[in-house]
């Protein structure tokens, strides 16, 4: 397991380098000049634009800028925001906990929804739970996230007045308020993620329940809890964990919408602001962080998969 972990860790380095290159090239190719945006767009003067071009290093050759970017990024220096002159790392430090909280709670909700639903559905195909799980899967895909979020706000914030409609409270300030403020956003995210997870888990658990080893376990007189919970579910979780891993980038993408609807100051809304103000430095930092998150998520996914499935470790 240890050698597997180390080997898998080493593959992260080239992954991140390639990601850095792609991020850099894509953000550099964005139409519209950062210097123009920084200088005020509609009211920018040519002198101001030139001034910013030099100040932002946009007049240097692309290759030189890329090397600068990688070298600095490797040491944790992601540059200075074009628009607020804040260090990008400070901005990330402020915004990342919001999005991470949201994603984490979202996944927990997704699992809380999917696991029991899929298990009951797989044990009783064509039963009521199976139909409910299908409805959840359908609604999670068919109902747009922003619409679902608005319905939640309408019901729980504006009508029942149980939960806040917007904004964020850091965990360190007040854990209860942190949770309450993230509850609706996390349910929105969890609902979106649960759809695919329920479908996947139901199918894979159904598949495993038909496997020979389940028959062996049952014929040996093991309880259903052990047969399903300890044996079938463990193996069925393999594909589900992969699904979860693949959903991390989707979740972050969904956060852009959810953070907008619930006015959460996370990296999703930061990404949008950075795009509109052509704050390439921030944009690069945000995307690089997102890539890092996805890469780490896929690393953890592989690790979890290896824990579940001993065959993987050998390769």
């Amino acid at each position, binding site marked *: 397991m240890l050698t597997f972990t180390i080997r898998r860790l080493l593959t992260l380095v080239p992954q991140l380098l390639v990601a850095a290159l792609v991020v850099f090239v894509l953000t550099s190719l*964005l*139409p*519209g*000049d950062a210097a*123009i*945006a*920084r*200088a*005020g*767009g*509609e*009211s*920018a*003067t040519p002198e*101001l634009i030139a*001034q*910013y071009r030099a*100040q932002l290093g946009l007049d240097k050759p692309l290759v030189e800028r890329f090397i600068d970017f990688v070298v600095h990024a490797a040491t944790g220096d992601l540059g200075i*925001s074009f*628009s*607020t*002159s*804040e260090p990008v790392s400070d*901005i990330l430090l*402020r*915004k990342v906990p919001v999005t991470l909280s949201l994603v984490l709670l979202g996944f927990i909700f997704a699992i809380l929804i999917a696991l029991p639903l899929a298990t009951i559905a797989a044990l009783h195909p064509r039963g009521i739970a199976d139909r409910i799980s*299908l*409805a959840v899967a*359908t*609604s999670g895909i*068919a*109902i747009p996230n922003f*619409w679902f979020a*608005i*319905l939640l*706000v*309408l*019901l729980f*914030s*504006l*009508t029942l*007045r149980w939960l*806040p*409609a*917007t*904004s964020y409270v850091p965990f360190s300030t007040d854990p209860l308020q942190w949770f309450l403020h993230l509850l609706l956003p996390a349910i929105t995210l969890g609902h979106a993620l649960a759809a695919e997870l329920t479908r996947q888990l139901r199918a894979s658990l159904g598949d495993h329940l038909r496997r020979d080893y389940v028959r062996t376990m049952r014929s040996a007189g093991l309880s259903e809890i052990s047969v399903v919970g300890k044996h079938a579910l463990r193996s069925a979780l393999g594909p589900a964990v992969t699904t979860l891993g693949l959903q991390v980038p989707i979740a972050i993408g969904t956060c852009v919408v959810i953070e*907008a*609807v*619930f*006015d959460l*100051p996370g990296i999703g*809304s*930061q990404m*949008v*602001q950075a*795009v*509109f*103000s*052509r704050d390439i430095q921030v944009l690069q930092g945000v995307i690089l962080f997102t890539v890092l998150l996805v890469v780490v998520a896929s690393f953890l996914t592989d690790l979890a998969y290896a824990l579940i499935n001993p065959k993987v470790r050998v390769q």
Partner: protein
Amino acid sequence: MMSTEKWRVLRRLAAAVTVGALAVALAACAPGGGGEATAAPDPDGSLTFGYFEPATSLDPQQGTSSQDIPWLLPVYASLLSYAADGSVAPGLAESWELSDDSLTLTLREGLTFHDGTALDADAVVANMDRAMTLETSTVKGDLSSVASVEASDDLTVVLSLSAPDAALPAKLADRAGMMISPAAFDDGTNLAIDPIGAGPWQLVEYSPGDHLTVERFDHYYDPESVLLSSLTIRLIEDDDTRLSAVRAGEVDVAQISAAQVQLAGTDPSLEVRTDPALAVDHLGMNISIAPFDDPLVREAINYAIDREALYEGIYRGTGTIAWQPFPPGYFGNDPSLENMYPYDPDKARELLAEAGYPDGFSFDFKTNNQPFRVQATEAIAGMLADVGITTNIIPMEGPALLDEFYYQNSVPIYFTPWGGRADPSQTLDNLFGPDGLNNPSKVTAPDLTSALDDARDGGDQDARGEAIRHASDLIMKDSRMIPLMFPGVTTVVRDNVIGYSTGLTGKANFLNVGVAATS
């Protein structure tokens, strides 16, 4: 596998359930009332304002967007200010005297910045120097007529002018007149996020792209007007979220879009108000690009546009139809221009034929991809199609569109809001002057150029008004502008808020605004 029929039933079921839930929720929202507002403002009151755009910088001399202003106003006081009717009034300077070659400001006594630094004539000179010399200064242009600045004594500052500039006092009531503590210039303070001014409130906390919290500054020059003990401005970019936040009581005041007026009106604890403002939505043009270089074509477009339909359909009955650069009631407005190009598609077709386009023409109609602007663009495209001008709508991101319009001269015409300026000449010069930043063609006419000069150099308010009206006449005669609408500013205000209205500048200001003490 599941049959398509089953899927369809399920989908319909899902739709029915969600619509049902919405109906229940809406029904539940309708009745009920808010608390009664009492007339006396709470001296310890605090208020939260929801705003739709982040500040580009909290350094007034380096910020690049007019949407920075609401973020700056709590922290910074200006040398001069606007009265409620848009005219210039005293500010940090209690009086001023403008001549052709100088502007003399007399400061109030005993002013200080938030950090305790004295706000005297030397501080003003330091600010003016920085504003005029800083490489990335964005107010340099506003002060282009200023040759030098001197302190003649502790309270008197003299700005020597290289040319007459009637608009200078108005500019000093705006961003260019916002005074920053000179102590922060050299000590490494990042003013972009750590503002130090002499405004009614001082910084408590600023989280860029999220919120700004300020508390009452006890040494503000007009303490009577500061009713709020603290004020928070929250960035809420999404329109629906902003309204939800107000309805949930998490925000007290917020600007909303015209499309939301009806929904906001159903909530009895909210006041929905549209205040007039200088901003004008119009079709920005590059009149060097054919066929828009032909006045007949531009005139045809003016006739082709059904402004009533836009008013009802796109603006949902808010705002005022625009026939010229300045709204009715403003001193630069010319009543004789009202309804100059009434909706007349036949006339438009005739004019196009006369211009040599009997079958019309077609062009790429680019637009900012914000939903409202796309909607407006689509509506206008439909009207143009009626008279034979076919368009291919291309939504783009804002910065990319501006780049193409201003610097690549490749966008002939697009729907654009103009935020208005402190002084009418700023608007005229920018949009139509030979050096106008918002006139990418730089094309003008000799009579218009001299009319713009007259308007700028002016003299008293009446004479300037006359000159501005003359310039507007020339602009509209040649259809150099396709004005559409003065949208005004639509705001929702919770019923515990006392005294809120949006001034002519359109920028939220919380002086003389309070919240009712809750009993």
